[in-house]
């Protein structure tokens, strides 16, 4: 058994960390929320470095990588609350598996894609739809591509680019696309969980660092068990989430029969792990953690939004149970 990243994946994660740390930050997420700046790194930078095409076949100009290759990069984006989300890249790459021209446009960034959740005539809030120009949607049972009008709501987390979409044109790509659509949504859920993993990991690290330096009653607050145990529980949740994200991302390509259960378990766990990490980060900081200037609420906003995207915890726990009862565990 070898349940670890390989050297290439570790190198990719290190490179991604460097890129995202330079290009994005919770500070930039705050500015975007204030309408004072763009979501960073933005589509062009992500396309230029090749992250939008990691799972697009090489023949279509992509990296020909696995979902796990994409997930380790997405984790680093999550750590600094980067946008747009690599969820869109993951989903679109699955949907466009037999559309090399469109897949090439996804990879090189020449078209700004979003995948639309819900009805193409009036969708649910969809990730990165706010500034997209090319929409993929499920119209009945058919996969369609087209242009549309995106109406953003008031953002709770501006980096997610959420908007409701109405398609204004559509062209059928695949007639009977139900199964393909479901698989793409699960791939997206795993990458969302990977971004949540990065955000949760960073939130715990910030909480731990503060608990070591802030003193109360003559000693660092991290020495008190009430604070210490809160941070440990958040950290343990992050480590458990990491295991599920890696397993699910690996299964997407290597063990398709395990993938639906693994992806549902990862997404359900991501919702609670990031929420706990972000709420712990605020609590450990006390009053300062509840200020606009502090970064804690940006992690909290990400948690409060992501838990509902691509299915909430209850939906995915129900799926885990149904799949397990149907024999998915062997």
């Amino acid at each position, binding site marked *: 058994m070898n349940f670890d990243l390989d050297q290439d994946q570790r190198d990719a994660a290190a490179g991604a960390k460097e890129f995202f740390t330079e290009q994005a930050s919770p500070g930039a997420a705050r500015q975007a929320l204030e309408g004072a700046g763009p979501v960073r790194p933005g589509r062009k930078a992500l396309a230029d470095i090749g992250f939008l095409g990691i799972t697009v076949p090489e023949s279509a100009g992509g990296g020909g990588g696995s979902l796990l290759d994409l997930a380790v990069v997405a984790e680093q984006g999550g750590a600094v609350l980067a946008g747009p989300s690599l969820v869109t890249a993951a989903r679109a790459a699955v949907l466009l598996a037999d559309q090399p021209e469109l897949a090439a446009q996804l990879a090189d960034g020449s078209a700004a894609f979003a995948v639309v959740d819900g009805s193409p005539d009036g969708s649910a809030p969809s990730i990165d739809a706010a500034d997209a120009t090319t929409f993929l949607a499920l119209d009945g049972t058919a996969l369609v591509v087209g242009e549309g009008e995106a109406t953003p709501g008031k953002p709770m987390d501006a980096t997610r680019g959420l908007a409701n979409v109405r398609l204004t044109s559509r062209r059928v790509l695949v007639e009977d696309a139900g199964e393909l659509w479901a698989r793409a949504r699960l791939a997206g859920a795993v990458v969302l969980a990977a971004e949540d993993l990065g955000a949760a990991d960073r939130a715990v690290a910030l909480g731990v660092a503060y608990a070591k330096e802030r003193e109360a009653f003559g000693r660092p607050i991290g*020495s008190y*068990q009430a604070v210490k*145990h809160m941070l440990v529980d958040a950290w*343990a949740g992050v480590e458990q989430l990491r*295991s599920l994200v890696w397993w699910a991302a690996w299964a997407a390509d290597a063990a398709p029969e395990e993938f639906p259960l693994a992806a549902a378990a990862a997404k359900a766990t991501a919702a609670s792990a990031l929420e706990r990490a972000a709420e712990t980060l605020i609590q450990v900081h006390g009053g300062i953690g509840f200020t606009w200037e502090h970064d804690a609420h940006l992690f909290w906003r990400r948690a409060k939004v992501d838990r509902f995207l691509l299915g909430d915890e209850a939906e995915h726990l129900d799926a885990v149970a149904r799949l*397990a009862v149907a024999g998915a*565990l062997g």
Partner: protein
Amino acid sequence: MDFDDTPDEAAFRSHVRSVLEQHADELVHVAPGEQSPDPARHEADFRRTERVLAENGLVGVTWPREHGGQGGTLVQQAIVAQELSRARIPALINHIGLGMCGPTVIAHGSDDQKSRYLARLLRADDVWCQLFSEPASGSDLAALRTSAVRDGEDWIVNGQKVWTTLAHVADYGILLTRTDPSRPKHAGLTMFVVDMHAPGVTVRPLRQMAGGAGFNEVFFDDVRIPDAERLGEPGEGWRVALTTLMNERVTIGGAGTDLGLSPEVLAAHARGRLPSLTPEQQALARQAVGRAVAAALATRYTGYRRFTVLSQGGIPGPEASAGKLGGTTAAKLIADAGVRLLGDEAVYAATADGDDTWQKTQAYLPGLAIAGGTDQVLRNILGERVLGLPPEPRTDKTAPFSGGAGRLSGRVDGSES
């Protein structure tokens, strides 16, 4: 990333499987849906099971050959554990000896002790127990009071141990004592091997909340232990005990058959019970089942990550405590979901047809959050040694034990018994 056996591992697995099939008649098995039998009540069967497995090289897989082991790898040990579980063979009677006492003898024992004890331990000719906890020192293990006083070539031991698993069937135990009360609490301890049949050793079973009697209190009244049975130097007992505790947390599947508490077992149970619930009950039960399965798989795959590090020569670290914490949480969720699936019968200690599997499982779990380090002590270890958070002040750490130290303490390592 790869979860498959290498060709070598696959060959070893099929060897293990064929040994278990060949000797099936001589081994204890647990029928599906049954609880593991009490080793004390079926002592002869359990000892025979372990002896047969040892004679076929399936016990002490990672132990050095010179001590009767196989000199094998952690991966091989894990494969054996998986196959024992698959064959529905319950935890070996000597799991404490194999997991904790034996490795401590290997690390700190004299050549004479190693040759006298280790091979017999593997075959369950001798069953071992671990005599650590006392009525006044559980989590704060180093505050223990059982004394050993030098008397010529012997030591005279007086005191009491408690929560000692398997003491009522054990032949030997590793015993942590205080030999120098004038020194600070961690510095005055010494470890011994004690003959559980020696004059002055009294074992009294304690009935547990679930009804069974798996652990005991053990009294020492002027028990004479030869100096040759000392494990490590006088005053080095804490360092020796840390070897035991470290092994306790990295005994990868040594005793780890998860009979009755795996997500697979819960899924099978749910398959049978869900249809008899109302649609509303089914939806709620599925939430409980999904949560339990997700938690169990998260713990399992986190264990795989740790195992990968160990199998590539990594050193087991304090993060192993997270495995126990996660396992306890997952087990509680599995038991809760299992009981919930019984519907109205969940409030009785057994179903109408007499099945008490899930109720018994539920009643066993509070102990899991205490034994081998409470959830709270494990969080202290993780917070301080993994996250690097500062310890709580400990007023007794440097004071002589006899000066009344030991009333306030911070991070310590809990132990099972």
